[in-house]
């Protein structure tokens, strides 16, 4: 039915892809024991950097790179505030979001004169007409990238030594510490990675999807990603699924408008779906350290 309709499918993938990136970031951070409420702000900064970079450098892919770099900066700020110092993770996150909202729209005005208002289209970096090009065909590049990176994240978290150390820091910092794991370092690294993912997600939204920027363009998508992680019980697979479900919800909302009725009513659907998802996920045995603030 609906899902088989390619236009709908691509529509929901366009919506879900940026979420996937961001959600992976949140997942890494929380697995290491840091509640990443600031993800909304990091995503917004990434979105702006992605837009600016793509516009000035004339390549959407380079825009994504800029998004990642900006995200890493945000991650570093987060690490400084919640790991080095450390201050309350939730509140730091919320303050961080507000600041990012300000800084981005401020910078947006400063750069409005120099940057083109729309960024180049993002396509597979392969020559037209080659077999490879034909193979990749209509596959949305970013979705493929998102899935690949998620798989990589899952492997890193659950199959490698760093993954084991990272999760131990998130589950019980004292145990990790007495096992010689440098919790602070692990979390800082995790936050840098998380920031990178959040920034990439933001860039995927601007440079990869709507190809432009406007104030607060993320509109709570960072929070949605956060919810997706809880929904997915901190497992990459389920988290991706959650992002897709949200995509379906929002795509349906857009579609339903054409049946008449008030658009805003339909736009509640995806949030309610996510809420239902979080409810179903139930007693989430998440990383026990996430949200704790102790020196």
């Amino acid at each position: 039915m609906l899902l088989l309709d390619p236009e709908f499918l691509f529509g929901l993938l366009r919506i879900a892809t940026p979420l996937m990136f961001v959600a992976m970031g949140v997942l890494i951070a929380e697995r290491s024991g840091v509640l990443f409420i600031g993800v909304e702000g990091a995503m917004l900064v990434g979105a702006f950097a992605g837009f600016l970079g793509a516009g000035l450098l004339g390549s959407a892919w380079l825009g994504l790179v800029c998004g990642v770099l900006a995200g890493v900066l945000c991650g570093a700020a987060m690490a400084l505030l919640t790991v080095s110092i450390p201050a309350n993770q939730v509140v730091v996150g919320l303050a961080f979001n507000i600041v990012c909202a300000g800084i981005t729209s401020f910078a947006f005005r400063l750069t409005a004169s120099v940057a083109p208002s729309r960024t180049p289209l993002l396509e597979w970096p392969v020559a037209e007409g080659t077999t490879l090009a034909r193979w990749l065909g209509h596959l949305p590049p970013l979705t493929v990238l998102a899935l690949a990176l998620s798989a990589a994240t899952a492997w890193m978290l659950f199959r490698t030594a760093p993954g084991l150390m990272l999760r131990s820091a998130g589950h019980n910092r004292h145990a990790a510490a007495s096992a010689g794991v440098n919790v602070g370092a692990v979390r800082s690294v995790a936050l840098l990675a998380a920031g990178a993912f959040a920034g990439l997600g933001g860039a995927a939204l601007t440079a990869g999807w709507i190809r432009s920027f406007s104030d607060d363009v993320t509109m709570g998508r960072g929070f949605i990603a956060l919810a997706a992680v809880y929904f997915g019980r901190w497992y990459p697979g389920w988290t991706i699924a959650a992002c897709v479900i949200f995509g379906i919800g929002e795509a349906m909302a857009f579609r339903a408008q054409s049946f008449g009725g008030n658009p805003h009513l339909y736009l509640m659907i995806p949030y309610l779906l996510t809420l239902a998802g979080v409810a179903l996920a139930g007693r989430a045995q998440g990383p026990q350290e996430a949200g704790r603030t102790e020196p």
Partner: protein
Amino acid sequence: MTMGGSLPGAGEDPVRLAGICKAFGPIQALNDVSLSLRRGEIHALLGENGAGKSTLMNVLFGMLSIDAGAILVDGVDVSRGWSTRRAIAAGIGMVHQHFSLVGDYTVLQNVVLPTLRWSRPSVDWAAERRRLAALCQEYGLTPDLDARVEGLSVGERQQVEILKMLFQGSRILILDEPTSVLAPQQAEALLETLRRFRDDGYTVVIITHNLDDAMRVCDRITVLRQGCKIDTVRPSEVSVDEVAGLMVAHSGAVPVRARSAPGRDVALGIRELRVSEGGRSVVDGVSLDIRRGEVVGVAGVAGNGQSELAEALLGCRRIEAGRILIGGEEVSAAGVAERRRRGLAFVPEDRHAMAMVGGMSVAANMALQTIGEPAFSRFGVIDRAALAGNAQKHIREFGIRVHSPAMPMGALSGGNQQKVVMARELSAGPSALVVSEPSRGLDFAAGAYVRDRILESAGSGVGILLISSDLEELMLLSHRIVVMYHGRIIGELDASDYDVNRIGLMMAGIDPQRAERAERQGTPAARAVLEEQAC
């Protein structure tokens, strides 16, 4: 008889701590403490609560930075930039008082964790498993390598902690109050294992409050008092009383009064009580009558339903079947508050988790369940003078060491925390008291005091259910002892025929008859039966 750092040849000692000072804000936890450890010795650290034992070992293990002094490993000063990671690399391992394992990791993962490096991302689990299995073989440890640690008993967790140390190649093993959480036979088995480590050339440090253990198995004993090192002695050269003298500034333990005769009528009645956890029944048809002024001891290896029984009695755990009576009145359906109002008092085994709010003041903690009563509040408004007065009173009569009742409960040492809890529960004027592990982790002075209060309140007609893993304590305080095994009471002894060995066997689930026989064959055989049943 002073020894330690000043000894000739101490240079070869694998570890030397010299003039260590450590303060937490105003508290001088360690003051110029020097200590040297040797190859192939078991070294005991003794001292009252808050003496500085844990802190000193945390310093050696790199978990706390020091204000002054030096840490020498194999004669080399490593104080600068000393960290847990370095300590582990230098062959030092530590088992903390409150175990530090990653609950949702398997035994294997927990043990391997300390050996992981960012530089070696991939792990060869098969190989690690083989190495670990071999290690278990060697010291006769038998944990299931793929079990999640959450599900393990205290004893098993401790084995995992020890394996962790061995696996990461530690030659110096530190254990903080290892026996205080174990049943006698388990403790005995642990000490046996420690002896074998010593014979294999390991250095073992145990922090303990059990003087006898220290005297029996240790080669040297170092005593701390209020952050200062008092002395290092050889058990062979001193008596228990001497050591005790070293530990406490004030004159030693309070003599424990004699048990008074119990009264007639039943204070706390338990009828066919059944509690189940995840399908299997953890308390399985327990019936018991505790009369006024009677102390009934409950023995049993940790995890055989004692804590569930206690919680069911308090009313914070659903009961499947059976009845509970306080002073002859049925309370099975009542909630915690109601039961307390009917005269039930409760001292849980884990005070940190269940008996206190660390962030609130001592005074507040002393009124935790009575705050709503007219004594402390009118129309929901707290009478702070009354709160303070109440606290002052208890601090005086229980001799609680604390600057002011406004101090946060969390900053007290375990002993004093326990006194606060006891004071609170007894001051409510209960008719029945359920108390678990009243002296766990307390130095003997504090422990003796707490026991004395228990007997005193029994004397004043309170019916007491005493759950403890310390048999000495049980036999000292109880009029009779029941043994719990797999949620059932499998045996009961009267004060007249107490016998450690027999109780131990029952704790291992061996019924009295077989116990008799085993006893006739003599203890070694009995212990064999025991070990086979233990795990």
